[in-house]
């Protein structure tokens, strides 16, 4: 890190204190990035331990209680501490002001407050491990969560505080996108990543307060026994599920929409072509954001809710799937007549296209009422949401990390090792989770510590897949860290992209741009403007 140009944001104010009290969105983005990668590694390790336990039908290395605590922690840490803040808070914080030509987000101090609230929430949530862990599953369903004597209080307090961090990030982004766009950048000249972050921020702001009130009521119920969700006291556990899923289904769109934003950028840049159907993709993002609030009941088809509600939720659930399908086809057509280069970010974008399509289509199985009766709460659901969350959001996140890595640190990682890691991740992922589709439809229930003999072979295969996947991430960790010290230096625009963040130095100066940015060209005008990636300086025109 030593010889980076001296006035980049990484080195201009020196010292730990300047990092801890920074209001520079780039530094806050980097701090978020380090934290979420740590929690991703922690929860990923838990996943590998869980898969090891499931290698054989009965006890391998832990008993039922420890297993229950491990899968609860795996779920809670992955969702609340990794995947929800990952793209909006880490990459989004870094990239959003750069992409719209602003000097910083609208409320820099609120941004720093959001970071410290995240750290406080994370500490309290992780503190529950020391108290013996939580064994209720990340959904904290009552009356089990109010009856069990594990550390539900500290985990739910952590989640309550993390909700505010999510709300403040969302609020900050909405105001930034409304008010701080460079002159000339109308709503339809913004990059689609900004549309993705906007739709995500709308959901974060609308849905997270309901999670806050739900978790607060759960805490009050556990501490003072006022019986809101307790059936013995006139309450109703299904009502808790309504409150919980009213937040948690929009939350899955908080996870996927920023991922889709990244994929629009990657496909356009690496196909070196105008994005196909810009307005369709932008409106799909907003359409998903708004409709996602009306479908939460499809998590509760077998929970004893009324048949009328089940029918309604199933009907609307199908229409939420349409905008995602439109986006997939638009990305596909963007590659038509493009000049496609298969650098690592594009490899992750393509694996997103393939894996998210599988995830989305299996959602149709779970949306159909009669088939969901059979498939609900089985490994089919586990495979579905891993295909959508890991195959979708994490692939997009990895694509985004590799795409903006030169911009964030001014250095390029080794392309060979990156492709090797991508191969391991892709193969390991499919080995692990495609088998779980088959197990699920064969009737293997979810959250089982011990299982029947007939699933032993498939569980074994899935666990080996998990090791391959874990190995892929190890390689990635190594070469990314190595690139910080030994990576090749890069200029402002290594990939030859037209969005605004590539017009400032990498790593960017403290206040982003030297002059007040004005929009000269659209984000995807590859048909009008000549721009060449760095590694093609010497090549002859095709």
């Amino acid at each position, binding site marked *: 890190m030593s010889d980076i140009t001296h006035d980049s944001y990484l080195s201009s104010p020196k010292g730990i204190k300047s990092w801890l009290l920074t209001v520079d969105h780039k530094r806050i983005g980097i701090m978020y990035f380090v934290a979420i990668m740590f929690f991703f590694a922690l929860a990923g390790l838990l996943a590998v331990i869980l898969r090891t336990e499931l290698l054989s039908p009965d006890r391998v290395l832990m008993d039922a209680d420890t297993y229950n605590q491990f899968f609860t922690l795996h779920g809670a840490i992955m969702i609340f501490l990794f995947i929800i803040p990952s793209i909006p808070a880490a990459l989004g914080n870094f990239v959003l002001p750069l992409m719209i030509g*602003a*000097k*910083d987000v*609208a*409320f*820099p101090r*609120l941004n720093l407050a959001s970071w410290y609230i995240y750290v406080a929430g994370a500490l309290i949530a992780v503190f529950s491990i020391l108290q013996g862990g939580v064994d209720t599953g990340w959904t904290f369903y009552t009356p089990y969560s109010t009856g069990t004597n594990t550390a539900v209080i500290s985990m739910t307090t952590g989640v309550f505080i993390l909700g505010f961090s999510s*709300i403040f990030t*969302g*609020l*900050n982004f*909405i*105001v930034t996108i*409304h*008010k*701080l766009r460079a002159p000339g950048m109308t709503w339809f000249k913004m990059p689609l990543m900004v549309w993705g972050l906007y739709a995500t921020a709308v959901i974060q*702001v*609308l849905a*997270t*307060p*309901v999670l*806050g*009130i*739900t978790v607060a*009521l759960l805490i*009050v119920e556990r501490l*003072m*026994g*006022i*019986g*809101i969700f307790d059936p013995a*006291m*006139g*309450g109703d556990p299904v*009502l808790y599920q309504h*409150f919980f899923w009213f937040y948690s289904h929009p939350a899955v769109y908080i996870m996927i929409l920023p991922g889709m934003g990244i994929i629009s950028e990657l496909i356009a840049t690496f196909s070196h072509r105008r994005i196909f159907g810009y307005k369709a993709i932008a409106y799909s993002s907003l359409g998903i954001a708004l409709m996602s609030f009306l479908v939460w009941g499809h998590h509760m088809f077998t929970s004893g809710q009324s048949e009328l509600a089940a029918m309604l939720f199933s009907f609307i659930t199908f229409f939420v799937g349409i905008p995602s399908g439109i986006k997939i086809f638009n990305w596909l057509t963007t590659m038509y007549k493009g000049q496609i280069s298969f650098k690592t970010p594009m490899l992750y974008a393509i694996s997103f296209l393939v894996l998210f399509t599988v995830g989305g289509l299996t959602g149709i199985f779970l949306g159909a009422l009669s088939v969901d009766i059979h498939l609900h709460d089985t490994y089919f659901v586990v495979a579905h949401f891993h295909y959508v969350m890991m195959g979708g959001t994490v692939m997009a996140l990895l694509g985004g990390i590799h795409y903006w890595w030169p911009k964030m640190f001014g250095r390029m990682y080794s392309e060979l090792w990156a492709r090797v890691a991508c191969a391991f991740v892709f193969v390991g992922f499919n080995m692990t989770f495609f088998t779980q589709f088959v197990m699920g439809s064969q009737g293997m229930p979810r959250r089982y510590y011990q299982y029947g003999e007939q699933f032993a072979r498939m569980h074994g295969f899935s666990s080996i897949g998990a090791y391959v996947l874990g190995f892929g991430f190890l390689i990635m960790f190594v070469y990314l860290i190595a690139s910080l010290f030994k990576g090749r230096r890069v200029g402002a625009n290594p990939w030859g992209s037209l969005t605004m963040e590539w017009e400032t130095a990498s790593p960017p100066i403290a*206040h982003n741009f030297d002059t*007040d940015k004005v929009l000269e060209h659209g984000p995807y005008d590859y048909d009008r403007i000549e721009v060449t990636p760095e590694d093609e300086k010497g090549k002859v025109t095709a």
Partner: protein
Amino acid sequence: MSAENAAAGTAAHLQHHFVDSEQQQESAKLGMWIFLLTEILLFGGLFCFYAIYRAWNPEMFYDAHTHLDITLGAINTVVLITSSVTMALAIRSMQLDQKRATLLNLFATLALASVFLVIKYFEYAHKFELGQLPGKYYTFEGIAGSNPHVFFSVYFMMTGLHGIHVLIGMGVIGWIAYRTSKGHFSGKYYTPIEMTGLYWHLVDLIWIFLFPLLYLIS
């Protein structure tokens, strides 16, 4: 810095990343309105509770609400509405650069808010004494219908959360009054007061809906 800013000399309050103070004020207002949206949805969860439990046991809700003191509720509504008026006047007087009038109005709002809380305290004390409490602490007899403690769970949750927001509001108004006395605000820069006003009006808005729903059931 844009030329226009440099020429006019940046006002003390303008943050570097805004083009001019008008953009900064509009951004602050938009941010505040979005925050109010999250508050509405936070209370919305409790309103949803109220709606569902009232639909499940309507007679009990009617019978239980007769044990609430409507006059105290009405007085509280009047107190909160007047505090909303004084808050609006405080903003208006700062727009006209009248520091003294602003301070006067702010203190009036604080006084009314504390009157509201005192009345609330009496209502709560009365209920604690009678045993009309949520959940297993409920020991009051004489309410027909099933599970009367559910009404008091809803009552205490809604008025409790609202009371907490009144307390937070009083803290913020006190902080704003302190800064006004320090002369941080003027006719050109009064955004913090306006934001506090918006928050306070929302707290009043929520009570405007709480009062008929809890006190005037029939």
